[in-house]
Every structure is written in structure tokens, then in C-alpha cells.
């Protein structure tokens, strides 16, 4: 198949953050220094080459950007300051926009203002909606039980609808991701049973983020904080999501604390709080390479998360202390942040939470398929025998 060249691709990627790709002279230092780069998936230099040449199809169907966790070693060692790490980050943003068939994602990445406008608009709509419902059906002085301002059964139903909308978009994006990586890229025949054989990779990578921890060896600190904090944030988020989606009425009944759910909820809150503070600090201080080039989208993510966590904690405390009106107002603010947060997920970097483990899963399948194709021959052969 002839490869189509898109000379403007490199310019387009600038919107996604890749500024210095053109500087690369292909010494291969980045690929060789990366712990995740292996015999099959050699990166980031190859992706840099595709970018320089404008090989859009090759990039679109590539899995490599998802295998990078941005430890920043490649960018630090780059002799020309071509920022391979940042280019991989930008490629991930670009891929998210490619997986999204609606085109919303692309618009968001290109214009932070638009995204901000969307977030504010949705937040206002949500706020008005909840206030309207609350004043129509309940009393602002009552937090739970009968006559509550925002009763948990209503919020529960609302949450489920929201989740359905979110997963509808996300599902379609994931389908496109699968199509790009597994079908469109071609190259190797993939037997169906490999999908089953390698399925364990999906939960394994989702819950451990093991590969992020592998970046650890590169950094001299004894505890590799980014991995731990990232894992804490992610697990905290997942636990909270499950609790809110399924056990909302138990979370909200009070004033006594239902430890069967709250123990987990508190743990999740700690994870979320530490994660958010760590990331905000990192992006302000800019000491680590991976935090030096934040985009507007990254900040919207962090600020929304911050609002959600703080208001969530605050309304919980107010409720337990009996300040039900303040609790209700905080709760509305909390929901005003939650709704746009969930709705923007399929279109922004946040979606990498699902794309990453999926990519590991697909990568595992492809690798296995390649091994099968070589009829059991190991992939890692020394390419040059000693003469």
C-alpha cells in the first residue's frame, strides 16, 4: 500500500504541543534510553520520523504513543532539544482526537477557550437544573431523607444517565481505537483467540499501572512518586466513581457514618487529594520534564478535579455537622463541576485512563501474533552475528 504523505501534519501537531519535532536528526538515543522501547515497539524516534515525514496513517494506527509514560529521560538526553517525550504526549492528545469521531475533541485541544466555554456552559445549565429541581421538589434546609433538596434517588438516576452518555461516546471511541490499531494498521494476522488469551493484560495494567513503575529505574529518587501518586489518584477516582454510581444512597444517608462504604470513600478521597495537589504543584514548579509544558486542557482537568474533591469533602462535613443548607449549596457546586467533568471525559486526555490499558492489551496481542507468525522463533534475535 502506498503511503500518503501529509506535509501539514507536523504543523497540526503544534496545536497538540509538539513544537520541536523538526529538530530531530535521528541519533536514536531516545529509543535506546527508553525502558519501554523493545524489539517490536521501537519509540519515540520512529514516531518522530513519521511526524517529520507526515505519515498520518502510520501514526494514526500506531500504538507506541500509549506505551510511553513520559518519564522524561528521552527529552533530557536529547542532543538537539527535540523533546521526544513531549512529542509522544502530543501524539497521545492527537490520537484521542483521532479516536473521537465527533470532532469535538479536536476542537477542544485546538482551543482552550472553547473547552472552557463548554465547561462553564454545562456547569451553569447543570446548576440551574439542580436548583430548579431542588426548589420544586424539596427544601434547601433538608439534605437527606424525605423532602430532601437533592434526594439520592434522583441524583442516582441522573448519574446513571450521565454515565450512559459518557460510555456511549467512549465506547465508540474505543471501537475506533481498536479498528485503527488492530485492523487498519495491518501487517500481521491476529487469531481471535489471542484476544481471550491476552485479556488478563487489561485489568492487570488498569489496576497496577505496572509500566509506569518501570520508569522508576530511570529516576534517582528512592520512591518513584509520580507512579505511586498517579496510581493513588486513578484508584481513588475509580473507587469513588463506583461508590457514587451504585451506593449513592448509602453514602448520603446520615448523619451517622456508614463505615462499610465510607471507609473506602475516605481512602479514595485521600488518594484523589494527594494526587491533585502533587500534580498542581508539579505543573507550577515545573521541575520535572513531564510537567514543563502544560496545556490549557491539563489545567481545566486539574481545576475541575480540585473543585470536585474540595466541595465533595466540604458538603460531607457540613452534612455530618448538621449544617444542611450549606451542605446543599456546596453539593450543587460539586455537581456543577461533576457534570462537565464526566461529559468532557471521552474528548480529552482524561480518556487515557481507558486507552492506556487497552493499548497494553492490544500491544500484547500484536506481539504474540508476531511471534506466532515467525513460527515460534523468538523476536529478539541479535541482528548481527559476530563476524
Amino acid at each position, binding site marked *: 500500500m502506498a503511503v500518503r504523505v501529509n506535509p501539514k501534519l507536523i504543523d497540526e501537531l503544534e496545536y497538540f504541543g509538539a513544537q520541536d519535532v523538526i529538530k530531530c*536528526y535521528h541519533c536514536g538515543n531516545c*529509543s535506546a534510553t527508553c525502558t519501554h522501547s523493545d524489539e517490536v515497539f521501537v519509540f519515540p524516534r520512529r514516531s518522530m520520523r513519521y511526524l517529520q515525514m507526515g505519515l498520518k496513517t502510520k501514526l494514526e494506527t500506531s500504538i507506541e504513543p500509549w506505551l510511553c509514560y513520559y518519564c522524561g529521560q528521552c527529552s533530557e538526553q536529547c542532543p538537539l532539544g527535540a523533546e521526544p517525550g513531549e512529542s509522544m504526549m502530543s501524539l497521545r492528545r492527537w490520537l484521542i482526537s483521532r479516536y473521537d469521531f465527533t470532532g469535538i475533541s479536536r476542537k477542544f485541544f485546538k482551543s482552550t477557550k472553547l473547552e472552557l466555554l463548554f465547561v462553564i456552559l454545562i456547569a451553569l445549565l447543570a446548576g440551574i437544573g439542580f436548583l430548579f429541581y431542588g426548589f420544586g421538589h424539596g427544601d434547601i434546609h433538608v439534605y437527606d431523607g424525605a423532602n430532601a433538596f437533592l434526594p439520592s434517588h434522583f441524583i442516582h438516576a441522573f448519574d446513571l444517565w450521565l454515565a450512559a452518555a459518557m460510555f456511549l461516546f467512549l465506547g465508540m471511541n474505543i471501537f475506533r481505537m481498536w479498528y485503527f490499531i488492530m485492523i487498519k494498521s495491518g501487517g500481521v494476522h491476529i487469531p481471535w483467540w489471542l484476544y481471550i488469551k491476552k485479556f488478563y493484560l487489561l485489568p492487570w495494567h488498569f489496576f497496577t499501572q505496572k509500566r509506569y513503575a518501570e520508569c522508576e529505574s530511570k529516576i534517582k529518587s528512592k520512591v518513584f512518586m509520580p507512579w505511586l501518586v498517579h496510581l493513588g489518584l486513578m484508584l481513588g477516582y475509580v473507587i469513588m466513581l463506583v461508590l457514587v454510581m451504585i451506593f449513592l444512597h448509602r453514602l448520603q444517608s446520615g448523619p451517622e457514618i456508614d463505615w462499610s462504604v465510607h471507609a473506602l470513600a475516605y481512602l479514595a478521597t485521600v488518594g484523589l487529594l494527594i494526587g491533585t495537589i502533587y500534580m498542581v504543584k508539579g505543573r507550577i514548579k515545573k521541575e520535572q520534564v513531564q510537567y514543563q509544558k502544560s496545556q490549557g486542557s491539563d489545567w481545566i482537568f486539574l481545576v475541575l478535579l480540585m473543585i470536585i474533591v474540595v466541595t465533595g469533602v466540604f458538603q460531607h462535613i457540613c452534612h455530618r455537622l448538621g449544617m444542611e443548607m450549606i451542605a446543599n449549596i456546596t453539593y450543587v457546586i460539586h455537581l456543577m463541576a461533576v457534570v462537565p467533568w464526566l461529559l468532557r471525559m471521552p474528548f480529552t486526555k482524561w480518556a487515557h485512563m481507558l486507552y492506556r490499558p487497552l493499548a497494553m492489551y492490544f500491544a500484547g496481542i500484536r506481539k504474540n501474533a508476531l511471534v506466532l507468525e515467525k513460527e515460534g522463533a523468538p523476536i529478539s534475535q541479535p541482528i548481527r552475528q*559476530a563476524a
Partner: protein
Amino acid sequence: MSIQKKIGVYIYENGKEGKGIIDCRAIAEYAKGLPQVDRVTLFSEPKKLNPLVLADEFKKAGLNRIVIAGESPGYFKPAFTRAMAEAGGDPEEVRIASFREHGVGLEGPTDRAKAVVACAVFGIPFGLAAVPGKVPVNPATLVIGGGVAGIQAALEIADAGYKVYLVERLGTIGGHMAMFDKTFPTLDCAACILTPKMVAVGQHPNIELMVLADVQDVTGRPGAYQVKVLKYTGRVDAKACVACNACAEACPVSVPSEFDVGIANRKAIYIPFPQAVPNTYIIDGANCTYVQSEGKKCGACMKKCAKDAIHFDTKDELVEFEVGNIIVATGYDTFDARRLERYNYGVLPNVLTSLEFERLTNASGPTGGKIVVKTKKLNKRTKTEEWVFDQENPKPKAVAIIHCVGSRDQNFNPYCSRVCCMYSLKFGHLVREKLPDAACYEYYIDMRAFGKGYEEFFERIKDEGVHVVRGRSAKVVAHGDRMMIRGEDIIHETLIELPVDMVLLAVGLQATADAERLANMLGIERVQDGWFSELEYNVEPTSTERGGIFVAGVCQGPKDIPDTVAQAAAVAAKVLKSIVSGSIQGSRHRLTLLDIEQRAMSLAV
């Protein structure tokens, strides 16, 4: 001047001329005193320049030449040209006196600015008037640095019959070239080419060789520089010493040899290498027990010396002399590979720099030219285990050579060091020649085989079975007894991890540590990368800003041996030209205002 001129001088005063060093009012006063100048106007608001108003002014005063002076007055020229045309004058007669363009801001800025204005008033280009005059020249020449460049330049001048002082910092001349095994691409024995030249220098009646010497101060003018050289004492009488080696055999101290770049040891009394010129032993005071204990301990060498050549009481000596020309040929330092942690140089014993390998593979090196790996040996005196080369050590089965170490890297030296590709290919050849069973890998980014016969040499190396991998290796780590080298083969887009026994780092070249001191002392410029600046890149590659001071060899920029020798010979020609003609071009910045003014006036008439 055929037609009587009426000249108007307009001086733009923006308050920032030469950061306030230029006194525009003084320049205006001076301009008024120049012949035919009718009026001098200072202006500071360029926006108010109205060509029509100016034209009126010109017409009324009957001006037929306008001089616009200022920091960069070319900016205002269009307004004045139009005004001149409106006034019916010749637009060609609008002259520019640009302070910035003519280097005002150096010495005596106001005087220089006055000279620039004067030239414009006389209608003579500044460059034509401000030509430094000829000054008488002392026929003696100082050559700083005794590498191949210094040797070549010294021999050319001395052979022509003129006196040369050759100052070398170390105990022998020869420089880096003397350490090399072979030269590329001809694979000549470096020592076989260089040592006859070294001997010629040592025996030449016109060359006064000063080793272990350091230029302390240079004053004076082109053609007559007063030089102070500090000669450190070697504590051995060169005339008496016959280089019998009895002293070194007796010496109990053992320290890393500078000539062998630390891969072998020497004594505290030593000769840098057997063919050293001058062929005299030297006592290294910093490591000598006798010197350090102020004569209380040791002294074994003194007792052994049959010729009674060792005199511990000799002192450093400051010599002063005058020369007409100075040739700077101080060469280079190699990049410190420790700065690139990923190659583990200094951590893994068998990661070597290029100079270390040159010594290892050299027949006069510690293993007699055998390529072997380092092994651990117990040092009986210090009771510690050390990694050393020994003739009996095993030979490497695989050798990797990494190009561009410290070069073409923004974090270190951004420039290409120019010689590394070729000497690395030479290493590839030497490995395959001496160890036909060993594999040899070259990791390169771009192959810079730029010279005559170099590309052919590259092809030859490939034929000889050296594996050339495009892609710089990223790391070298321990792998059992061996080492693992990881890199990307860019052409095949694969990662390769190879176990090797020896890694050679093709370290780049950089300016010497004392280049800055030397530049300040001589009053010459350096480029951003640290190399000495030539006067003009294309046509004056050997001259510097200062008359009578020349650069030769790598100290001006990375180059290989043929280019270095060619440049050294070119410098010698320049020096000989000044000696034979009996005069030398002075320095431009030494010209006085009166000099320039008079010359401009004489040209104008």
C-alpha cells in the same frame, strides 16, 4: 577638491550612543572645525525629519554635501536623500557616518566617532583611511604550543633563517600527534612522520626550544612584542643527561603517565616517551619524595646518576625576550567523557576514550600495541585491586565504538569535532587488523568522511568487516563480565543490544582549559565555542584581530593533521612575509584620530 563644498553635518543624538560613552557635543564641536563644514546640527527626534523642511534648509544654506552621523544613521538616509533631490543637489552626496559599523565603542569611542565623521566629511570611505600603517618588525617569532602545528610553523620559519622561540607546556614537544598510533586515511605511523620533525626542532640552530614553560605575559605592539616566559625547572641538566634510565629505575614513586593518558604509570623522574624531544629526564616536583620532603627523604635517583645531571636546587626561571610575531598553536583538550553518565566511563573499566585506545594500540604503549582488556590486579604496594592493562590479558571478542561523544549535542558541544568519524574508522581498521576474530561495531549518527580519500577509507573499513550501525548508542551497562551496549539501528528500525568486551568513546575536541587566559593575555577574540577567532573566515583563516598574532591548528577550530600542517605552513608564510619586508601591518585600533584624519585628507586632495 575641484568644486568648493559646503557641507552640513547632522548628528543623531539618541542618548544611547555607545551606552553614553560617546560625547555627541564634542563630536559636533570637532565637526565644526573641519574644512568646508558649513553647519552642524544635532537632532534627536527622527520622526520630525521632514524632507521638505530639510530641502529648504539645504537650499538656503547652499549645501552640496550632507553627512548624517550617529549610531546607525543609515535609517535616516531616505529622508535626507529625498531632501537633497528636492533641493536640486546630488543625492550621492548624502554621506553616512555610522558609529556602529566602524566599531566605535572599542578604544577611545569619541575619538573613533570623530574619525568616522571626518572621513565622511572628506568623502573617503572609513576603511580606506583607517588602514594601519606599517611598523618595523623584530625578526624573531614566538610559537606557543609544540604540537604538530607549532613544530611545522617553527621549522618553516627557522629553515628560512630566522629565530624562533618554541614554548611548550609539557616536558616534550609532539603534542597529541605523538600519542597517536596511525594517521587516517593513509594509515601511516604517526610517530614515524612526526619524530623526524621533532628531532629537527630539537637540533635546529635557529629554534630556541623551551619545554615545561608557560607564557606569562605579552605586552608591546605588533612587530615588537615583549614576552615573559616562565620556565619550570625539570631539575635535570639537559646537557649532562644521556637518558640512560638509571634514575627512573631507582625511583620508588609511581604515578599515572600523562603521555599514556593514565593507562600506564611513570616514575616521579621520567621521560614522557622514549623519543621525547628534548631527550631529557624530568623530575615531577609534585610527586617526588625528595622535593616534597625538602631533601629529607629519598634522593635515590641522584645517587644512581652516573653523569651527575640531577640538581634538585635548580629554580624556575623567568625569561624575557622580544619577538615580532606570535603564533598561537595550543591545540585542544578532549571532551571529558565522565560528563555523559550513560556511557559509564570511569565506572566500567573497559570503556575507553579515543586517546586511551591510541596509547593502548600504539607499539610504544603499555602492552606493546596488543589490544587487550583491562583485568583486576593486586597492587602490592597499596594493597588495593586495580584495573590494569597487561600483555597477557585476554583479547576482546567484540569492540564497540561510539561516535559523537560530547559533540553535536546541545547539552555539551553543539559543533561537529570533525575528526572523530575518521579516527573511529581507523580504530575499526586497527581492531580488525590486530584481532581478526573480534567483531567491531561502529555506532554513528552521520558519517562525516569529508576529505580526500576519506570516503574510500570508509568503504574499505566496511569491506574489512567492521559493522557500521547508524544510530548512536544510548547506554553501556555491565553485563556479567562483559558489557551490554544498547542502541537503535535506525536503518532497520530495531533496537540492538550487543554484549561487548570493550567500548571506545569517540570523544570530541574542545578548546583548552587555559584558552581564555591566553586570549585575554594576547588580546584576541574567541568564538562562542571557545576556539580562537580568525580575522575572516574565508580569506584570513590564520590572522587574528591583532596584527602580528596568528593562529594555527585546532586552537582555531577542529581540524585533522593535514589541515593543521597546511595552516601552520600558511602562518609561517605570513610571518616570513612580514620579516622579509621588514615591516608589519599594525593594529587598526591603535590608529589615532590624527592618523586617520590626515590620511583621509590626503586621499581627498
